[in-house]
């Protein structure tokens, strides 16, 4: 599948780059200006608006996606840096019939309110549980410390991650 980034450039002579990036398991070829941020590639060119833009300065974590499995703030990564890499976003977490346990956990434990930070939280939490299936509360809090939430006070987010960890380990939640 080829996606051409159609936004006009700042001048006809501005060079563009062609990159191949795998997003949620689908490989796409995209032509874009080298200065385009990864978050804009995802949101505008690919229409994956689940990844949000909060602070522009790598602080709030609303734009967190997984690049080759590592949580990465897509507002401070150029899209061209993703060339040849694998990106996962919140849209890739669930199937039409099944939610990821983290998604279930966030709903069960009231781990979200306005929902704006939630996709980034989910991605950071996903990376944590993939590396550490039985984290302590401190490990959860530390893993999520790059993701700011203004609504919940985090206590229920911690519970949501614990809920998911239980379920993923096959224990009774």
């Amino acid at each position: 599948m080829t996606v051409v980034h159609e936004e006009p450039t700042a001048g006809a002579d501005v060079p563009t780059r062609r990159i191949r990036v795998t997003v949620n398991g689908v490989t796409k070829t995209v032509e874009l200006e080298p200065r385009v941020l990864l978050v804009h590639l995802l949101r505008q060119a690919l229409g994956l608006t689940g990844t949000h833009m909060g602070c522009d300065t790598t602080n709030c974590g609303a734009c967190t996606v997984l690049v080759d499995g590592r949580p990465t703030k897509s507002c401070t990564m150029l899209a061209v840096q993703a060339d040849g890499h694998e990106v996962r976003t919140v849209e890739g977490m669930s199937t039409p019939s099944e939610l990821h346990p983290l998604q279930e956990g966030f709903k069960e434990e009231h781990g979200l309110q306005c929902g704006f930070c939630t996709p980034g939280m989910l991605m950071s939490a996903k990376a944590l549980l993939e590396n550490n299936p039985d984290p302590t509360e401190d490990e959860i809090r530390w893993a999520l410390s790059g993701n700011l939430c203004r609504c919940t006070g985090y206590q229920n987010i911690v519970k949501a991650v614990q809920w998911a960890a239980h379920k993923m380990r096959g224990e009774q939640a």
Partner: protein
Amino acid sequence: MTAVDERKIGGLGTSRKRVEDDRFIRGKGNYVDDIVLPGMLHMEILRSPVAHARIKSIDTSRAWEVPGVHLVLTGEMAATRNLAWMPTLSYDTQAVLATDKVRFQGQEVAVVVADDPYIAKDACELIDVEYEPLPALVTPEQAIAEGAPVIRDDKAGQDDNLIYTWEVGDKDGTDRAFEQADVISKLRLHYPRSHPSPIEPCGSVADFNRATGKLTVYMTTQAPHIVRAAVAMIAELPEHMIRIVAPDIGGGFGNKVPVYPGYVCSILCSILLERPVKWIEDKTGNLISTGFARDMYLDSEMALSKDGKILGVRIRADADHGAFYADAQPSKFKIGLLHSTFACYDIPNAHLMARGVYTNKAPGGVAYRCSFRVTEAMFFQERMMHAAANDLGMDQAEFRRRNLVRDDQFPYRTPFGFLLDSGQYHKCLEVGLKAIDYDNFREQQKQARARGRLLGLGISTMTEPLGAGNSREFDILGIKMFDSAELRVHPTGKALLRIGSKTQGQGHETTFAQIVSHELGIPADDIVVEHGDTDTAPFGMGTYASRSTPVAGAATAMVARKIRAKARAIAAHLLEASEEDVEWELGRFYLRSSPERGVTIQECAMAAYGNMPDGMEPGLEHHAYYDPPNMTWPFAVYIATVEVDPETGVWDVLKVVAVDDCGVRINPMIVEGQIMGGLTEAYAMSSMQFQTYDAEGNCIGSNYMDYLLPSAWETPGFELHSEVVTPSPHHPIGAKGIGECAAVGGPAAFVNAVMDAISHTGVRNIDMPLLPDRVWEALNQRRDVSGAPPVRAED
């Protein structure tokens, strides 16, 4: 005995899981920045780099030359449409785009509309503005000093920087109380400027359609109908041709109530270009130009008898409003509800004097999880209580016990004229003290002190008026502060509820259905809740000041009761009885004489469309507008314990206990979420989160590297208590507001705890936030530490 079990249908008091979550956890929310319209262009704002300067010239020619630029708009061009200035919700004016002067750093000077935001940003940098600097005024003291430059020289007759003076209470009675006092306690503090800073900044997509004449604006607003009225007045467009849509909102906390220049510019640009124009603010733009809160200087005295009774309080307040008096403050009181201070204590005499002042800082002043300055009111109250107890040599809990309003005093009229509706203040306090193990902690504290460890405990007990308003005391643009609900029950018994308020995360789509379930017995899952679109929602005043449950929630109960009244007539018809012989149980009408004969609400719904009594208008739908007779007065006790490191001034939270009596809880899970969120913001304000300015008027706190918000790592855990429930006597379902309580009452608990830990120093006050260096200074220099701007060079 009821037809349905309320707990099984998601009714009142059930922790129903949120219906909103299903889209948010999948990344399928629909926030303003997610909206893409055909032919849409992008707008960026050029902001002033300086705080106060005359504009000598603006040259946009280089910006126009950038390929992909469609419009470069300046104040001069906006003036030709009479839109260089706009009215504020506080009956002042505010520049949309600066023409004569810039009056704060970050003020909007010009906008560029281009094919994409990258191009628009490039072109903004090519606009040449020549500024002639003027002295910047960053405190009320500077602004009212003799000879200070007049910031608002645009206003005829304004020859100084004073906006208003306002007073309330009994001055003579208070003076007499002070003459009789055994002890007079004094305190002065600055409540720092804070920004609500939702993670999602502000933005809009304006779409003017020349063919239909209709303007549709998708925007981050907590109050869509107010915006529609304001746009009709500002832009002189007919109100019926304006549609404001607030889609999902990524947090508001008061920041998204006012009408900002960015919104107005996107509308004007769409009208000029006849294409959709999107504006998405960046974080710095949000932090340095949109509605802040607090920034108030409080100075007061308390008259006390030696047995610990408060005889009177005298308060002086100076509010720094920034360059325009643009707070979204709908009360008839100039200083908002500041005079709710000390409301929970039985005090015979009180007097308050307040001034509002212009400075060269961003405009605003009341937003942020706060009913119009109750946060300052309750913080100051509890800091003063703490200082007064120490001055009396009295235990903090005992001092509060001696002064809290007793259960038998309700309804209680405060010396400032508010009427407290209900409460069990003493019971809440005792629950809190038990939960923190008060007596034991005091003993531990003594032992720790002997070993050089600094433990502290802080209490904050408070009530606040929530749910603006009543039509006597509140209006916006002349529109009274009621709220509304419209309910349609479909033939199969499913229902659509539309409300005039608008969630920004509070979960209205979940909880408002629960109110209908409680009234009608229709399962909550069978009710869809819509809001935020002015073309479909009934006229409402929006969501802020914890007013949704007290006002729109009441309207929802009332509209459901209207539906039930009509359904009763239908039931009587179906049962071939008179209405007087029909009884209601949840979900079903039945014959008093033979209870086994009945009809469900769903059967009544079908009959409303197919088998109604002769002469009855078909259908089962209604609307209700609710004008509350009073505010609701939730009560809370927040107690924190901390340990201060004497070597570094760093303090850690040991435990936080919250006892909230917010009346009947519609959804306990959501109520607890609100309390924990509020406590976190309270912790943030007390420990790290603030904005200040240097002497040139540069904003310190313009991005998340300077404006610190606590993450999961810093934020403490919370222990919540819900055992005290005092229903509001005047609210249809007995509910009170809860969204703000913990953010309002929480900060004093943390600050009092730190002050308690360092009580041996004799220091009376450290201004928030209690940064380690400030605590260290207090510990080592044994003096009060002010946090007021301008920021000191060594900071």
